[in-house]
């Protein structure tokens, strides 16, 4: 094994001998460890580790023996509503005791070191959490002080952080007048203002339009690449996370469905949806494209069950060539291309091609 070296982004924020380098969890949880890090030279650093973590409420089981190991980088936590994502974050922040099992964040045990964890971690909740009558600057300064930053540092860090998330002159205006996108940025800024080592972002793209969504995802990517902060981001859409994350953890019904690096997912999940017009020459344009693509050896499914079924074709993309092929085929037929888009996947669809055991698990959860 190569000698352990501190990741570049760790320098200055943690000592290499600090509790971050826990050996205990690593050894026990090696079964699920997947190498994620592309920016770090440390192979076996664990940011979050849980071991048969369960949380049962009187009527529901929110988490069911969840064992997962998350390294540095951007990690997506995907699950349907009620899959146990928020419960997991609460436990990881040390705010809700687990029924059984254990968990460590940055090498600190959640049951005994909750306060230490919360000092080094940022949290952006899913719901609205901003008072409308104060400005973004005032609010974030206050939150920085609540994280223990001295007054001057709190003001400086607030100015920096708000700029980094893309809020400029607006930051002096009351939050009540902000758009949803700007509010999400303020929520993100308050999670980053104390320069944490890890942030939990709960559904950060909720309520945003496609452009805002892409900007937010880009920002999340930068939190890791530029700021050197590890990210755990939850979503119920796998499609948007696979573009942003290094690693994706899928939970359903409180159970771990899958934990692997994003490249594994993308290969199986890029599906294109195509819709074309009809012409006099080809009264059924959809069928014509289908036949033409079949002739070139591309398997096409009709998009039954989707809106506009019968007019939508689905095909699995093998990369850039597929887009070119579709374009050429449609141009040759003289049809109009109404749309060609990457479909956003729901978690359950990911597993339709994987082994039967996992298929069962999906069926059980949905």
């Amino acid at each position, binding site marked *: 094994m190569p000698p352990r070296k501190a990741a570049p982004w760790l320098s200055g924020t943690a000592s290499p001998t600090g509790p971050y380098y826990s050996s205990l969890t690593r050894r026990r949880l090696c079964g699920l460890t997947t190498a994620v890090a592309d920016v770090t030279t440390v192979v076996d650093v664990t940011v979050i580790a849980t071991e048969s973590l369960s949380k049962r409420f009187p009527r529901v089981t929110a988490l069911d023996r969840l064992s997962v190991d998350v390294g540095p980088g951007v990690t997506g936590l995907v699950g349907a509503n009620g899959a146990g994502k928020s419960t997991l974050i609460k436990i990881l922040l040390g705010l809700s005791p687990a029924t059984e099992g254990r968990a460590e964040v940055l090498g600190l045990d959640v049951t005994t070191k909750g306060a230490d964890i919360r000092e080094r971690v940022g949290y952006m909740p899913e719901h609205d959490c901003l008072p409308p009558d104060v400005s973004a600057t005032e609010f974030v300064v206050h939150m920085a002080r609540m994280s223990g930053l001295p007054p001057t540092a709190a003001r400086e860090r607030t100015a920096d952080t708000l700029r980094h998330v893309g809020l400029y002159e607006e930051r002096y205006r009351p939050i009540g007048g902000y758009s949803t996108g700007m509010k999400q940025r303020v929520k993100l800024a308050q999670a980053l203002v104390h320069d944490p080592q890890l942030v939990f972002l709960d559904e950060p793209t909720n309520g945003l339009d496609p452009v805002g969504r*892409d900007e937010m995802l880009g920002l999340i990517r930068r939190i890791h690449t530029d700021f050197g902060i590890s990210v755990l981001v939850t979503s119920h859409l796998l499609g948007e996370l696979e573009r942003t994350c290094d690693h994706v953890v899928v939970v359903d019904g409180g159970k771990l469905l899958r934990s692997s690096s994003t490249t594994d997912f993308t290969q199986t999940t890029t599906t294109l949806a195509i819709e074309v017009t009809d012409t006099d020459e080809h009264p059924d344009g959809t069928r014509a494209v289908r036949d033409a693509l079949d002739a070139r050896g591309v398997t096409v499914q009709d998009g039954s069950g989707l809106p506009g079924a019968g007019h939508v074709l689905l095909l699995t993309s093998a990369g850039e060539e597929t887009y070119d092929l579709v374009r050429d085929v449609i141009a040759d037929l003289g049809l109009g291309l109404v749309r060609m888009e990457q479909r956003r996947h729901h978690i359950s669809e990911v597993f339709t091609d994987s082994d039967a055991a996992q298929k069962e698990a999906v069926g059980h959860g949905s």
Partner: protein
Amino acid sequence: MAAEQPTATVPGDQTRIHNIGYRSYDGPRLGRAYARRSLYSQSLRGAYGLGRSAKSKVLPMLLFVVMCLPAGIMVAVAVATKANDLPVDYTRYAVVLQAVISLYVAAQAPQSVSRDLRFKTVPLYFSRPIETADYVRAKYASLASALFILTAAPLLVLYVGALLAKLDFADQTKGFAQGLVSVALLSLLFAGLGLVVASVTPRRGFGIAAVIAVLTITYGAVSTLQAIADVQSSSAAVAWIGLFSPITLIDGVQSAFLGATSAFPGGESPSNGVGAVYVLATLGLIAGCYGLLMRRYKKVGL
């Protein structure tokens, strides 16, 4: 401020490029106690509208002036007429102006806690080192301090005025000290009641109405019952009934132990035995309010 430095941007990076490098923070992190102090001072300033909009300064400042104005007038009269004593006892002052105090609690308790609940800001606090107890203590202490400032300032005006009018020093100092103890108790009690009511009414307007209701309706009911009991000349009943509203509770405590003349009908002060019950009831209520607040915030955690 921030040192601008060129960012290493990856070509083809689809995000917006902000041309400022990220700087990490290696400075001190002052922890829970500091956060609690910061929350206390922020809330205390907020209770007088400081650090908030001009509009929110109006009411607390106005009430503060209304609280101090009669004291100023009394002092002026005492100095001008060379009176032998102040027109109103130190201990009596807060009881006379209880409506102003109730109004202040009703306005400021909801702004202190209801906003955080209504806009769901509470989880942001509890995802930080600060804990439920820190939050509750900071909020409780800040409102109690704000109330103490409101109620003690006019007493200070009276005291300084009394000394200027060359009234008896020992006498005035004793009265002033007794007055301070009484308003300290009153501040703790009113702050506790106000916060408990406000913490279960996340809508601010509703909170204001509820606090006023708790403070004034109980007083109205108690003083009516006391008047009836007084007419029927059952002075024991007058004393016992006084236990059931916050201001008469304070009145009972101070007339039993702090040398105040009771504002009860018939001027009947509770005996020492009943007075002890008053003290216990007051302290019990204060502790109970703290306990209820803790319970409330344990639930709304995250």
